């Protein structure tokens, strides 16, 4: 809920505390972008709820000064859906990694997009499992060698942007931790969008991903041309499939479908009818 602030929202409101991340991790840049986006959005601090899963990225909201439900691996989307349906006036932001969001939580990812529930979903995507020490993730490229895939990944890579656009998600954006101002911009837009917003942020894992490192992303991430029309679904789908030498970043797709929480009957604050009149139907 956007309302006139009775306390000034400043950089100190969401001060970042000590983290458990490796030096040089892309998470540092992303958490700063999240913080800047919260300040810029001007939302009431107590009207924001973060919901996260498990993994190094999912720890991020613990280091911000926010309401937080830190749930199970892969299950942040249903938990966030419950929060939003119970109290649609809250601004609900989901933050987790690629394994949690696209692997363990794959079914929820598809269903949350279909519901178009008004959540802002920030995915730290480093194409590898960090916390469990270096196994392939759903977004690992084919051929990516790990201890658990010593002959290289044989499965096709999961492109979250392509899936989200194909399902006509409300708002689909990609950014890169090496472009902090851009990432902040994407998060601000995602928060503003009424409906399901995905912001997939590419980031290096300095410990376990020696292939997709900072330089690799830096060389490939290119901002979408100014004339890119995110409301053109067919074109957005084409852009969404691009991966490799050139990786487009920016708002790839957006629509104005009404969010689920505005379509269904939510009456948490309504007064229930008299119990007697409900029971009378059973006479």
């Amino acid at each position, binding site marked *: 809920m956007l309302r006139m602030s009775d306390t000034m929202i400043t950089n100190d409101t969401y001060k970042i505390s000590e983290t458990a991340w490796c030096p040089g991790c892309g998470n540092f840049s992303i958490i700063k972008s999240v913080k800047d986006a919260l300040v810029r959005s001007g939302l009431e*601090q*107590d*009207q924001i*709820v973060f*919901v996260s899963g*498990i993994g190094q990225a999912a*720890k991020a909201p*613990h280091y911000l*000064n*926010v*309401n*937080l*439900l*830190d*749930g*199970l691996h892969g*299950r942040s*989307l*249903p*938990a*966030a*859906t*419950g*929060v*939003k*349906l*119970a*109290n649609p*006036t*809250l601004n609900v932001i989901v933050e987790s990694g690629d394994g949690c969001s696209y692997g363990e939580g794959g*079914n*929820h990812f*598809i*269903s949350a997009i279909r519901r178009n529930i008004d959540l802002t979903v920030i995915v730290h995507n480093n194409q590898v499992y960090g916390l469990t020490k270096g196994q392939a993730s759903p977004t690992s490229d084919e051929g990516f060698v790990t201890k658990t895939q010593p002959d290289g990944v044989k499965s096709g890579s999961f492109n979250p942007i392509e899936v989200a656009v194909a399902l006509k998600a409300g708002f689909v954006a990609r950014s890169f931790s090496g472009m902090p101002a851009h990432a902040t911009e994407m998060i601000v837009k995602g928060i503003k969008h009424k409906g399901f917003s995905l912001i997939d942020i590419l980031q290096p894992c300095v410990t376990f991903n020696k292939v997709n490192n900072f330089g690799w992303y830096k060389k490939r991430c290119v901002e979408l041309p100014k004339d890119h029309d995110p409301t053109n679904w067919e074109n957005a789908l084409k852009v969404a499939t691009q991966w490799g030498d050139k990786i487009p970043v920016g708002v790839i797709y957006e629509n104005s479908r009404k969010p689920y929480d505005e379509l*269904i*009957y*939510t*009456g*948490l*604050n*309504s*007064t*229930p*009818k*008299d*119990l*007697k*009149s*409900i*029971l009378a139907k*059973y*006479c």
Partner: protein
Amino acid sequence: MNTSTNILIGGEAGQGLVTIGELLSKVLVRAGYNIVVTQSYQSRVRGGHNTFAIRVSDKEISAPKESVDILVALNEETVNIHKASVAKEGIVISSDKFKSGEGVLRPIKVPYEKFGSAKLENVASLGVVCSILGVEKGHILKLLNDRFGKKGSTIAKDNENMLNASYDWAAGQNIVFNKSPKVKTDKERYMMNGNEAIALGAISAGVKFAAFYPMTPSTSVNLSLISHAKETGMVVEQAEDEIAAINMAIGASYAGAPSMVATSGGGFALMVEGASLAGMTETPVVVVVAQRPGPATGLPTRTEQADLEFVLYSGHGEFPRAIFTPGTVEECFHLTRRAFELAEKYQGPVFILTDQYLADSFRAVDKFDGNLSRVKAGVAASEVKAPYMRYALTDNGISPRLIPGSSKHLVVAGSDEHTEGGHLTEDLDARVKMVDKRLKKMEGLSKEVSQPEYFGDASPDKLFISFGSAYGAALEAVKSLNEKGGETALLNFSQVWPLVPSTFIDKLNSAKEVVAIEGNATGQLAGLIRKTTGFEIKNKILRYDGLPITPEYILNRLAHGEPVEP
């Protein structure tokens, strides 16, 4: 047990036997009788063989009956399958077109085509049964009008004509039948089944959110919630799977909505990690598990009581919980209310264990108090100290729960081991304090436990032990034995966790013999009693063929040690 009449309606799925079963049940309840309904159906949409049995009596009854007094056969197969179960004085109502019926002592062959459209044969059979039972025609016509009046005058009129013709035809046949005496009543009562009562208990407690994935026999809890959702202002969300369902409920509860999930064994298997999350994050959630026979898909539409241990030990790690096992439709209502109160007070998962038999069993129920209080989620901000800490250590283990967004305080709930403030920690001293804090709540739950109910002789020859839906059959078996001079008693558990030995151990010790009556193959309650008290129950009467325990089943097992056909 000759004080009741058992009516069994049989036919294919899709023939409308549930419709006439429910209509007949309601007519009988409105006429002042007591009923116990048992529904038996197959896992298919059309065809197969389904039954809807109504045991009816002017006296208190609490269990199904196996022998049939009135068989209403909507197809020939029903006659063949059930004729051996028909009592000596029993009658078999079927179409005069049916060729089968060899060995049926008292057939009533009904010329349905004379009364009206073949599509309304089920309504005609209702007329015949009501006539034989002596139920006033006005009762049925009123009910038909309530139910079909709106559908358009032609349909309502056709139904009425069909009923009049069949009722009058049967009255003219001078059928001798030893029916229950008329009941004089002007008291309004409800007719509802176990799952409806669970939904209404939740509504009375102020439920605001439920999420589910459809699964027999739990779905009707959610359907009942949905049918009243606009009146209660609640959200009932069909989730993509049961994992999503319980995580949604936990999210909603964290955000201030009293929340529940209803599922069956396989669905609950998927929810187990969520149960553990509710324990760790100390989030109230009511979990209804409507049991059916397992393992795996098992017998999807039948009944069993084999998930007690599963629910008791569900979820990794150690955390407090309570498990209720209602034995009657009234208890389904009241114990669900209780579950919401305890979940909120002790901030964690509370379970309701029911089963297909009780879920689908319609009964006559005395009216509930319409002014029951609702649960309030969380405490007011004025009740907490700053800085607010979600998991503040307290004497009773209960930390004041704030709802995020309701005040300036931030609420941090975590699934990792956490500090008092809710943030993840690897401080091992803090870990020990948090485990102790959470388990401290078990003491409070134990103090508030529902005492097991005792019925019968004070120092009995035989003491039956039961829980959940086996209660009614065990109670009637005790009454039956004691009428014949036996010294029998029953100890029934409507809450199986926490088990507090001091509330029942004397009863076990003062009985000559203890017999566990359970709807499973291993005697799970007996095992739990042994674990908590050291008292070993050697004798067990167990049923796991997918059908509910009946008084006859218990008495036959006692007499012969082996199951005997009724």
